């Protein structure tokens, strides 16, 4: 996907994303791992198709061929029985050879898919009901930051995600990049993958995790390494206070109306830990973990009544005047 660069400072602001949630298909591999898996899948598919067609052909022939006429069920032809026994045995042996061959092939694919590269970029993903906390960690704390529901990675470089859960079991799955891995309470899992091409790849929770399991998606944005570096540097920074009055009003409301109890916006007094970090929420592509594309309208709709859009989620409905709503939305949108 071409990423037009408008200015050096905010190259990521103008990604044409709202119209497209990104690709989410095992048949559309954009990563080294998903490529390898699809190759294995195709081999299996061909073997399966051949076997199935052969069985159906034999079945049809056995129904259509001319039969002995007398109805004497026990009058069996001894040579035929013996020959049949040999054929059945041979086919059984062939089945054994095929499945052993496929097992080896599968294991080879597995080794490739799960190969580890120590130079990988590491980030930590923590599953919550029903959103994703994403932590970019670095040895120096000023280079570590937290975001949510969106992962940006460089193309061509291995990425290792460490997977943990804050509550129930979830599963991290970006089919266009690689297969899935569970986020298990009390256990640390990890997954490595490498995006071949720049683009937006949609991911979704694949382990049933409760009421809103269906609305627990995220986006992986694969950027060229340069772009990724710039994004990271920018994301690393705290936000500065809004300069326009509406934005200021929004910031005050964000604190005053309780939003800040659950959400963090770095560089402000908002430091809640229960909900997604909103520091650069304005630059994200979706609202409510992939439920809606990001826009003023969807953001407003979400804040106005989150329980309508994603019933049962942990964000309460706050009664807001429409002016206040507009101010909050404006404030959040400019948190690029």
């Amino acid at each position, binding site marked *: 996907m071409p990423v037009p660069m408008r200015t050096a400072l905010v190259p990521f602001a103008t990604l044409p994303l709202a119209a497209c949630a990104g690709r989410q298909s095992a048949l559309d591999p954009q990563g080294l791992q998903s490529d390898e898996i699809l190759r294995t899948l195709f081999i299996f598919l061909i073997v399966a198709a051949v076997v199935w067609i052969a069985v159906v052909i034999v079945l049809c022939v056995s129904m259509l061929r001319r039969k002995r006429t007398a109805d004497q069920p026990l009058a069996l032809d001894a040579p035929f029985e013996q020959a049949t026994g040999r054929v059945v045995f041979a086919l059984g042996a062939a089945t054994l050879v095929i499945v052993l061959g496929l097992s080896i092939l599968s294991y080879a694919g597995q080794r490739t898919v799960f190969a580890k590269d120590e130079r990988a970029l590491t980030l930590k993903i923590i599953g919550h009901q029903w959103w994703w906390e994403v932590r970019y960690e670095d040895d120096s704390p000023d280079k570590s930051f937290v975001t949510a529901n969106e992962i940006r990675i460089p193309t061509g470089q291995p990425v290792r995600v460490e997977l943990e859960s804050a509550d129930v079991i979830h599963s991290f799955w970006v089919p266009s990049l690689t297969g*899935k891995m569970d986020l298990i309470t*009390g256990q640390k899992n990890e997954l490595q993958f490498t995006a071949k091409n720049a683009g937006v790849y949609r991911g979704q929770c*694949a382990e*049933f995790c409760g009421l809103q399991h269906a609305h627990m998606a995220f986006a992986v944005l694969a950027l060229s390494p340069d772009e990724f570096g710039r994004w990271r540097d920018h994301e690393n920074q705290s936000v500065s206070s809004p300069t326009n009055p509406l934005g200021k009003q929004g910031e005050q409301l964000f604190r005053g109306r309780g939003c800040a109890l659950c959400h963090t916006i770095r560089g402000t007094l908002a430091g809640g830990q229960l909900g997604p970090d909103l520091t650069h929420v304005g630059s994200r592509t979706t609202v409510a973990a992939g439920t809606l594309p990001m826009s003023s309208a969807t953001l407003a709709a979400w804040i106005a009544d989150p329980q309508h859009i994603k019933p049962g989620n942990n964000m309460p409905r706050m009664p807001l005047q429409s002016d206040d709503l507009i101010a909050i939305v404006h404030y959040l949108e400019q948190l690029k």
Partner: protein
Amino acid sequence: MSMVAEQHELRDDALNGLQLSTRVEGIWRTPSGFLGALMSVDHKIVGRRYIVTAFAFLLLGGLLAVLMRVQLARSENTFLSADKYNQLFTMHGSTMMFLFAVPVMEAFAVYLVPLMVGTRNLAFPRLNAFSYWMFLFGGCFLWISFAVNVGPDVGWFAYVPLASLQYTPTKRPDVWAQMITFTEVAALAVSVEIVVTVFKQRAPGMTLDRIPLFVWAMLVTAFLVMFAMPSIMVASTSLILDRLVNTRFYDSSSGGHPLLWQHLFWFFGHPEVYIIFIPGTGMVSAILATFARRPVVGYPVIILSLIATGFLSFGLWVHHMFVTGLPQLGAGLFTASSMLIAVPSGLQIFCWLATLWDGRPVYRTPLLFVIGFIVIFVLGGLSGVMVASVPIDTQVHDTYFVVAHFHYVLIGGAVFPLIGAVYYWFPKITGRMLSERLGRWNFWLAFVGFNVAFFPMHILGLIGMPRRVYTYTADMDWAHLNLLSSGGAAIFAFSFALLLVNVIQSLRSGTLAGDNPWDASTLEWATSSPPPPQNFDRIPVVKHRDPLWLDNASLPVVAGLSVERREVLLTSLAEAEPQIREASPEPSIWPLLTAIATTVFFIGSIFTPWAVLWGTPPMAVALIGWFWPAGSKEDEE
């Protein structure tokens, strides 16, 4: 002592013909009236109830599936709420697995095994009655809970910690877990009955290599139940304890581990698939022999395959856990063991194909369903080989691909043979034939509807649609295939409506069947349709694997059993040599009372641990009533 009693006891060698029939029927008859019905220990009456109840649950579970398909037919649909949908798919899975698939197979065994091995009742008939009541009460418990909005909503697999008290503080998971306990008690009881019946009550001369393949299949299934179900009992008990008295089995902050649940669940859950599938193969073998007009090719191969499948099924549970972060080599080995099961399954398929190849097929409805079975099941087996591969599974696990796969295996492998079996044995059970014309419609609608409903799901899974989502956004491109699938589901559902119509019509006005309408070879066809309470006036003697094909005019029998009290003939394990004329229990109300006491105990114990204290004495009393000799004839010798 027995010698004295024998002097004046009337035996069946002293009577003949109608006199004998009337006399034996008199002692084996279930008492009339409502109370009599509740006391019945006749395996045919209990089996019939079991079958009808299981099919009722099939209809309910199917209805849920239809509702889910309506919801998914288009994106962002609001037909069902998230909460309802989650209850629905949990209820659908739980109902189909625990209240339909396993019980219906055991139900057919309860009805058919004694007839096929030539005896008069199951071993432990009262246990059998108890088993049915437990199944019925457990099923009603689940569905009544659902009706009052306490239906489980954490999936039929109830993964912790989602199913723990912290994340699901309602009673819903408790209902699920205790329903498991009910149905497992029922299934375990039946499996012991089946094993003992097959081991000890076969007709004289029915050596191991003369046992009908259906009976072999049910024997292997019974063993699978005995070794798989304790695992889920431990699992469901520990889950209830975690939720009720704060044990920490699954609490990772206190040394527990969520994966322990998955191991326990799938150590049961994978054999469960074969507990459903192996009886299906038995039905296929029975139907195929009759309609291909020859014995199934490779009798020993099929038996060894069944046994091998049984053993292997305990060594591959981990393939349900490939994405939980297991050691790579271990996972790879489970790939191999999972694929290995293709060998015994394949051998059976080859034997059946060879049978059709050499046979002179008569294309009646049961055979159509068997042919449909082969086409569908082989496809499901092959997609099973695909999901057994770790790399492929990381993509398709928990997607609609897997949904497609296991419906191909379970509906193809078990439901198609089962519907074939309904057409095949309906005449024996009711005395009337099902309509062949409706049967053909039934088959073709089921076959087409099934494939239209489930084939597109393979593709849906590959293009990214996960399971257990109550809706999906419009930009996901899944709507068309989902709509197609929902259309297929409607056709498939309609085929079951036809079956129901056919059954109701035929019960009233179907052609009378006679003893052996299909000219089949096994012993259940040697008695009248429906069979009399005693099954056989005299116990048959078996001289061939296909006794009725060897001689369909006269039946060799043994004489010398009592006609004054219920007696069955026990024979030796391998050679089926007569050993004992054992008393068989009379009808009794105690199994029902025990089941009621147990139900109170089970339901009480999801609310308070004290139920263990006040729930036990009634159970103990009921059990003593059950086993205390009634001073009836069984005891007087």
